[in-house]
């Protein structure tokens, strides 16, 4: 029942199947791209996906925590935009140094998440609505700070934006990827080796049971939204490395990308099941879809949307078919 048997008597626990399906589909997409386009099947293409989507990966990690408890956070895109806006305006206007600005931005993001988590837990309001209000609030704050794009000229930020960390054999990554990798590793440790992680899975599995077991359900819920807020703010900082500007219209609709990445990675929106590795794969898949579209080249912007939608559909359908079969 709970295992998928592979020919030679070896079995894979059912909980790993969605992640493995995603991994296989990613590999298949990569191979297909390699066959179709010249210069596609190189390691740098995968690394470029990481470089271009480091901020999305960080945000999706926060989203994974929230979705694992059975909640949802619609505010992440706006918080990312707000973070770039606060950072840019404080550095360009009063000329605050980055080592003050960055912690401040992270504090604001975590604070917003904390308040939302508290509202959800203490007053029993649905997460969808609270974070929707949070989305309006953060976006509104952006426009209140300014409606124009603010360039970032701070030397520390530009160094972060331009540094290439060389790996072996002509491969390179940006410092943002290192930040994202650290976030992923820390988050994976927290989810699988700490009490908080256990409580997150338990709350998502069944809130009533977790409560009856004496787990701190309320504190866990507040914690995951705070984590998501922190990750969004950090994602915003990384995005401002990438864009070198603060703008109220940055990251519009990013919450949907983050949710899609988490779901493609095999995490159930009802909570309780899923892995961080799945989220990483989900971000990779979304990024690879975009890479393939850019290799294709001639698509107009509406065809891009249609193709992304169709690929998303094909992907979820395939995953659904594979994991449905494994449950038989």
């Amino acid at each position, binding site marked *: 029942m709970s295992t998928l048997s592979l020919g030679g008597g070896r079995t894979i626990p059912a909980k790993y199947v969605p992640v493995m399906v995603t991994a296989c589909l990613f590999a298949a997409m990569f191979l297909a791209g390699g066959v179709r386009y010249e210069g596609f099947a190189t390691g740098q293409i995968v690394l470029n996906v990481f470089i271009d989507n480091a901020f999305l990966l960080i945000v999706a990690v926060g989203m994974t925590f929230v979705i694992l408890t059975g909640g949802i956070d619609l505010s992440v895109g706006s918080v990312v935009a707000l973070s770039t806006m606060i950072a840019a305006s404080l550095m360009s206007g009063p000329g605050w140094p980055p080592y003050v600005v960055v912690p401040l931005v992270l504090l604001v993001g975590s604070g917003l998440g904390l308040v939302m988590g508290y509202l959800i837990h203490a007053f029993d309001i649905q997460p969808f609505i609270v974070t929707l209000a949070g989305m309006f609030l953060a976006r509104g704050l952006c426009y209140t700070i300014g409606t124009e794009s603010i360039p970032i000229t701070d030397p520390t930020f530009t160094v972060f934006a331009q540094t290439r960390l060389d790996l072996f054999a002509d491969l390179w990554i940006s410092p943002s990827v290192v930040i994202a990798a650290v976030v992923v590793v820390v988050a994976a440790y927290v989810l699988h080796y700490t009490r908080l992680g256990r409580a997150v899975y338990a709350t998502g599995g069944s809130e009533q049971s977790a409560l009856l077991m004496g787990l701190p359900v309320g504190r866990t819920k507040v914690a995951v939204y705070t984590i998501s807020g922190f990750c969004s703010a950090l994602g915003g900082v990384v995005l401002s490395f990438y864009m070198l500007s603060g703008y109220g219209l940055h990251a519009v609709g990013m919450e949907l990308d983050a949710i899609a990445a988490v779901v493609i990675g095999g995490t159930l929106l*009802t909570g309780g099941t899923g892995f961080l590795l799945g989220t990483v794969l989900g971000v990779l898949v979304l990024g690879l879809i975009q890479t393939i579209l850019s290799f294709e080249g001639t698509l107009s912007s509406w065809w891009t*949307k249609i193709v*992304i939608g169709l690929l998303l*559909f094909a992907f979820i359908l395939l995953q659904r078919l594979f994991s449905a079969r494994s449950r038989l």
Partner: protein
Amino acid sequence: MRRLLWPILILAALLLVNVIFTPGFFSIQLREGHLYGSLIDILRFGAPLILVSLGMTLVIATGGIDLSVGSVVAIGAALACLQISQDQGVLVAVALSLGLCLLLGAWNGFLIAAVGIQPIIATLILMVTGRGLAQLITDGQIITVNEPAYKLIGGGYLLTVPFGILIVLVVLAVTAFLTRRLALGVLIESVGGNAEASRLAGIRARGIIVMVYAFAALCAGVAGLMISSNVSSADGNNAGLWIELDAILAVVIGGTSLAGGRFSLGGTVIGALIIQTLTTTIYSVGVPPETTLLFKALVVTAVCLIQSQAFRDKVFRRRGGTAPPQPVNEEKVRVST
């Protein structure tokens, strides 16, 4: 009725704020055979949102959610305007466009009921693809139409009343009849309570799920016709943008739980009116456009807090005796076949 008490009070409070800033707010006049007045405007401009929210109410009642309605609004508007600009009859154009919307809604329902994809993801697919489709239909342009008969839908009047308001009243009456006088409403609520148990009890849960998504898309299509007819053009990029969020907000403010299992059509209409009145209030109070979203966020938070039992208990300190039993956090039971 008790459930509707808070939404009604909030709506009344918002209207009162308007009266303070605009003294003649409640006056309704008859000019050139048309009804005029701020209240009429709220109803008229709120009509598309009310329609979309009505469809969303039934979807949410089954425990689902439909993120694609905004894109369907754009597709409906784009196809109708394209047909009319190619000298098709208005009736043919409207029928074609609504037919396509029904089809898209049924597709959503099929993905959710038959394939078993989670509603938020299934409709997310159409939300992304649909925006592209709408732009494909209009070829990335804004199609303008100049057809008096089409203009009637969103901007015209019939028997002194704006036509859009009449459409809403008809849809509301039909929906209320179907769901509250016939068994359909109970069936929808039972599917929302537990789809698997309903199926075992002999309810065609899948058929009902497909039906509510088709209905939601149809409502969105009509809303799309209204919006495009009111401005005499179809914009594939911006028509109905983010209307799904407003609609979900309206449904929740109206007292329908996102968990599914029960719904209130009256509450939804009031919820949609609250959101539309809020938009009007923002203009009449003179909130600068940059802070509009901020203002909206604060009001939404306040509205949700006031509606929360836990918040009321903490702030207003109930005094013994009459307190209703606390709702128990219901857990859904999954029955496997």
